[in-house]
C-alpha cells in the first residue's frame, strides 16, 4: 500500500485573489472593465476627499487595436489632482495585494484599496503588461514607475523607474486589460454620469474608445466636511478585534541598552550631566508628564533597582514577576543573577503592571471605544461580570469571548458617533438633482444618524418630478458612500422600500416622470455581495429609508395635488373657452337674434377666479 502525502502550501494574498477574482467583480471582460474603472475613479475621489482637494478626475479608455472586435485589450488611464503617493510607497501600494491606507474607521468609498490592485492583477493576467504609475506629491517632481506583480510572492517587480519635472501634483494610473467596451460602455457612461450627480464638487471627464468625450464639470464649489477617523463602537466589535486592540495596548519591556539609556538621559535633560540615583528620580518626577512610555518603564525599573545610569549599564533585566513582586536581573560585574523586591504600594509598581499585564478593563474600554465613559465602563463591568480593574493582558480566551458577547448585548451604550460619516448634504444633493433633471419639483431629506450592529449610518434621499425626467418612473438612483450602484438592483433594500410604496396614495398615477435618489452613508455598508452592488435589508436601514421616503412622498403628494388643481383649473378654463362660444352661437340662432350675446367677460372672470383660487391654495401649502 502506498501512502498519499498531502502537501500543504501557504499561498500569498495575490495568489488567492488570482484564483478568486470573481469575488471582486472581475468575472468577465465586460464586468472587469467596468469594475476597473470604478476602482480607479473611486480611489482618485477618495484621495482628494481626504486632503480636501476639489477633485479633477480624468478617465480615458483606449483600444490598443481599434480594428479588433470585442473583447480586446484596452488601456485604461485615470488621472487626478489628488495628493499623489510618496515614491517610496508606490511599488508596495500598486504591486502588492492588501496594502492600503484606508484601514481606519471612517466613511470612504473603498475599504482597503484592494480593488485597484485587483484591477492591476487582472490587467497583468490578461495582457501581461505592466501598470504605469505617475505620481507627484509636491507638484515639482514626478515619479514614474512601471510595475509588475510577482503573484506567487505578493511582491512588486519594478520594471522601470524615472523622474521628471512637472507643475502639478496628482496621480495617474494606467493599466492594460482585456475588456468589452461595446457591452460595458453603457454602464461605464451611466457610472460616470451618476457619480457626478453624487459628487457635485468634482469635475469628471471621460474620453471613450470611440472618441466621444463626456464632461461633467463641478457645479458645487464646497467640499462637504471630511469625515473624522473615530474609535469603534462597542456594538460593532468582535473577539478578533479585541485581541488586536489588546496587542496594540501592550508594551514590551524595553531592552535597556546604551541607546535606550542615552534616550532616557536625553528626555530627562541629563545628556551631559551625571546625577545620583535620588537626583535622577527627582528629575523624573518633575518631567513625568512629558516622558514617553518606554522612558517611564525604565525609570520605574530604576526605582526598584535603586541604580543610577552607570550601574544600569552593567545589568540586564531577566524577568519581572508581578505576582511575587520580584525583579530578576543579570549583573555583568558579578557575573551572576540577582533579584530585588518591588514595593507594590509604589506608583512605579502600577506603571510596570500596566505595561506587563495590560490596562485595567475600564481604562481599556474608555480609551479605546467611543461612547464609553468611566461611569458606563463601571456599569458595563458589573453587567458583564468582570472586575473593573481586571487586566486585559490576563484575560483567557473564554473571558475574551464573554467580553465580546457582553459588549454586543449591553444596551445602554449611546448610538454610534456619526462624525465619521460624510453625507453629501441636502443643499448639494438638491442642486445636483435640479441640474441633472431640470425637474418641476424637487425635495430632499437627510435623516438623523442611526446605527445598525454598531455601525453608524445616515440616509440621504431626494425625489424629483417632471421636467426632463423620462416617464415610467420611479427611476431609482442608488448610492452608497458616494458610489453609484448599477448592477443587481432587483435585490436591493432601496428598491424593496420603493416598490412597497403605494404611489397612488401620494397622487402619483399612470406613467409618472419621477426619480428617487437614495444615498446610504456608513462606515460599513452591508453589501449583499463582494461586488458592492446591492445593499442588504437590515431592519434599521430599511426603517430609515422608509421614513425618508415617506417624508419625501408626502411633499410630492402636496405638490401633485397643487399641480392637479392647477391642471384642473386650466382644463376647466379650456372647457369654458371651447364650449361657451358654441352655446352662444346656437342660442343666438334659436332666439332669433342677430348679434351673439356678450359672453367674453364671463370667460375672463372665470379664468381670473380660477387662478386666484389656485394661488391661494399654493400659499396654504407653503404655510
Amino acid at each position, binding site marked *: 500500500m502506498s501512502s498519499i502525502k498531502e502537501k500543504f502550501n501557504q499561498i500569498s494574498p495575490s495568489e488567492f485573489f488570482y484564483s478568486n477574482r470573481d469575488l471582486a467583480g472581475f468575472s468577465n471582460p465586460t464586468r472587469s472593465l467596468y469594475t476597473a474603472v470604478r476602482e480607479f475613479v473611486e480611489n482618485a475621489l477618495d484621495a482628494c476627499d481626504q486632503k480636501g482637494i476639489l477633485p479633477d478626475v480624468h478617465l480615458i479608455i483606449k483600444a490598443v487595436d481599434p480594428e479588433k472586435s470585442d473583447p480586446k485589450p484596452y488601456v485604461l488611464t485615470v488621472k487626478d489632482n489628488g495628493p499623489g503617493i510618496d515614491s517610496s510607497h508606490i511599488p508596495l501600494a500598486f504591486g502588492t495585494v492588501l496594502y492600503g491606507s484606508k484601514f481606519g474607521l471612517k466613511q470612504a468609498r473603498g475599504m482597503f484599496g484592494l480593488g485597484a490592485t485587483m484591477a492591476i492583477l487582472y490587467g497583468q493576467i490578461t495582457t501581461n503588461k505592466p501598470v504605469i504609475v505617475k505620481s507627484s506629491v509636491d507638484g515639482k517632481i514626478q515619479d514614474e514607475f512601471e510595475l509588475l506583480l510577482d503573484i506567487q510572492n505578493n511582491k512588486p517587480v519594478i520594471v522601470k523607474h524615472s523622474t521628471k519635472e512637472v507643475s502639478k501634483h496628482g496621480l495617474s494610473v494606467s493599466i492594460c486589460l482585456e475588456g468589452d467596451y461595446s457591452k460595458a460602455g453603457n454602464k461605464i457612461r451611466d457610472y460616470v454620469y451618476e457619480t457626478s450627480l453624487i459628487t457635485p464638487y468634482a469635475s469628471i471627464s471621460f474620453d471613450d474608445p470611440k472618441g466621444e468625450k463626456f464632461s461633467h464639470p463641478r457645479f458645487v464649489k464646497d467640499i462637504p466636511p471630511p469625515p473624522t477617523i473615530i474609535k469603534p463602537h462597542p456594538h460593532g466589535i468582535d473577539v478578533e478585534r479585541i485581541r488586536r486592540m489588546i496587542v496594540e495596548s501592550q508594551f514590551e519591556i524595553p531592552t535597556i541598552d546604551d541607546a535606550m539609556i542615552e534616550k532616557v538621559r536625553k528626555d530627562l535633560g541629563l545628556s551631559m550631566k551625571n546625577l545620583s540615583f535620588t537626583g535622577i528620580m527627582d528629575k523624573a518626577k518633575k518631567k513625568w508628564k512629558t516622558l514617553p512610555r518606554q522612558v517611564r518603564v525604565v525609570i520605574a525599573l530604576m526605582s526598584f533597582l535603586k541604580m543610577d545610569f552607570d550601574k544600569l549599564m552593567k545589568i540586564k533585566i531577566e524577568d519581572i514577576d508581578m505576582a511575587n513582586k520580584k525583579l530578576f536581573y543579570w549583573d555583568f560585574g558579578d557575573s551572576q543573577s540577582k533579584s530585588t523586591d518591588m514595593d507594590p504600594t509604589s506608583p512605579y509598581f502600577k506603571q510596570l503592571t500596566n505595561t506587563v499585564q495590560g490596562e485595567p478593563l475600564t481604562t481599556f474600554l474608555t480609551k479605546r471605544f467611543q461612547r464609553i465613559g468611566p461611569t458606563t465602563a463601571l456599569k458595563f463591568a458589573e453587567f458583564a461580570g468582570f472586575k473593573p480593574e481586571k487586566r486585559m493582558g490576563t484575560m483567557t480566551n473564554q473571558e475574551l469571548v464573554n467580553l465580546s458577547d457582553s459588549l454586543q448585548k449591553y444596551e445602554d451604550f449611546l448610538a454610534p458617533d456619526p462624525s465619521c460619516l460624510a453625507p453629501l448634504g441636502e443643499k448639494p444633493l438638491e442642486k445636483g438633482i435640479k441640474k441633472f433633471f431640470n425637474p418641476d419639483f424637487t425635495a430632499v431629506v437627510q435623516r438623523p444618524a442611526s446605527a445598525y450592529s454598531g455601525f453608524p449610518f445616515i440616509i440621504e434621499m431626494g425625489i424629483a418630478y417632471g421636467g426632463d425626467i423620462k416617464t415610467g418612473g420611479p427611476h431609482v438612483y442608488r448610492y452608497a458612500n458616494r458610489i453609484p450602484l448599477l448592477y443587481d438592483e432587483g435585490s436591493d433594500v432601496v428598491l424593496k422600500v420603493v416598490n412597497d410604496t403605494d404611489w397612488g396614495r401620494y397622487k402619483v398615477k399612470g406613467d409618472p416622470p419621477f426619480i428617487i435618489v437614495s444615498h446610504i452613508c456608513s462606515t460599513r455598508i452591508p453589501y449583499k455581495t463582494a461586488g458592492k452592488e446591492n445593499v442588504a435589508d437590515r431592519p434599521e436601514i430599511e426603517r430609515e429609508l422608509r421614513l425618508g421616503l415617506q417624508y419625501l412622498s408626502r411633499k410630492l403628494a402636496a405638490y401633485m395635488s397643487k399641480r392637479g388643481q392647477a391642471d384642473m383649473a386650466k*382644463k*376647466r378654463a379650456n*372647457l*369654458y373657452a371651447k*364650449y*361657451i362660444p*358654441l*352655446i*352662444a352661437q*346656437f*342660442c*343666438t*340662432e*334659436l*332666439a*332669433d*337674434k342677430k348679434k351673439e*350675446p*356678450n*359672453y367674453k*367677460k*364671463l370667460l375672463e*372672470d372665470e379664468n381670473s377666479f380660477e387662478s386666484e383660487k389656485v394661488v391661494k391654495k399654493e400659499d396654504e401649502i407653503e404655510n
Partner: protein
Amino acid sequence: MKLKTSKSKERSNKADEKQKNILEMLKSHGAKIYDDLDNEQFPKFSIPSRSVSNIVYDKKLRQYILGNNTALRSSRNSSQLRSFTQLMWLAFFANRLTKEKKSSTLRDVYYSSQAFAIEFEDQSESDNIIVDLEAITSKPREDFHIFPEERSSIFGDLTIEYTIPGYEGKTMNLSNHPDGYSIGPSLTTAELVDTSAEIVIAIEKGGLFTRFVEEQIDKKFKSVIINTGGQAPRSTRTLLKRLHDEMKLPVIVLTDGDVYGEHIAMVIKSGSANAAHLRELTVPDAKWVGVWATDIEKYKLPTIPMTESDIKRCYDLQKDPRYQDGIWKKELDVFLRLKRKAELEAFSKYGLTNITDKYLPQKLELAKSL
C-alpha cells in the same frame, strides 16, 4: 290624388300651427339661454329626472309618467358643460329641421353633430341627448322631425293629405298599393282626411299583414291594417293614437301567443317606461285580442316551449302595476302555467286562411265585449 279643398287648407293651417308652437317653444328656451349669457351668467335649466326612482305609474292616465324630481343642468359645472352644449346644439339643429321641414333619423343627428364641432362618443350618447330634449319640451322627437329608422306599414281605406314640403295639399288613399305604405315622416306628419274603416287592426308580423291584405280583411271587416313589425315604433304608436283620437277608430292588437306579444299590446295601450316623459304615444282604449295563452288550449295550437328568458320576463311583468288585473294578469298566469308559447302562424296547421276565416271573426266579436 284629389285636389285641394278648403277643408284641406284648414288642416294645413293646423300643421302650420303645430310647427309654429314647436318653433316658439324652442325660441323661448333659446332666448332664456341668450339672456343669461348676455347678463354674464352661466346659463342653466332644469330637466325632469329620468332615473328609475322618478318613473311612476299613473293609474288615471294608465301609463308610466315621470315624477316631480328634476335635475339642474348648469354650464357652470364643467362636468355637465359638454352635455349642456350638446343639448343646445340639438335644440338648434331641431329648430332648423322644423323650420325647413326636413326630416332626419337618430343616426343623421349623430353624424350632423360633427359639422358643428360637437363630438358625440357614439350614437347612444346622441340618442340620450335627444331624449333629454323630449323630456324638457314634453314633445316626442318626431315633432322635431327626427324619425326612427325602423318602419312599420299600413294598409286600408284611409285618405291622407301631406304636409311635407313639395307635397303639401296632395292627398293619397292608403288602399292603392297591396304591399301597404311604410309609416315614415311624411305619413306621420300627414293630415288624416277620411276613412270608411270602422276599426284598426294592429298585427305584430309582416307575414300575417300580407295575408290579411290578400284576404281583404280591410274590406271584409272595414278595417285599417297596421303591421307593427314587432314592438311598435313610436311613429306607429303616434299614428295609432291619431287614428283613435282623430278618426274615432277602435284599435285592436293581434300578437304572437307569448309574453313578448302580450307586452307589445301593452306598450301600444299604455306606453313604455322608457318614454315615461311623453304622453302622446298611448292608446289607452286599445284592446289585445290574441293570441292569448288560453287560446293555445282552446284552439289546440301547436306550441314550442318557453325559454328561460321567456319565463323570467313573465315574472318581471308580474311586478308591473299594469299586469295586476284583468286579462293581462290572467293570461300571464296561464303562460306561466303552460310554460309553452304559440306563434300567429300556428293557425296554419288548420289551413292558411284559418286565422282570417275563423279566429279573427271570433276575436272581433269578442273585442266588442272587452
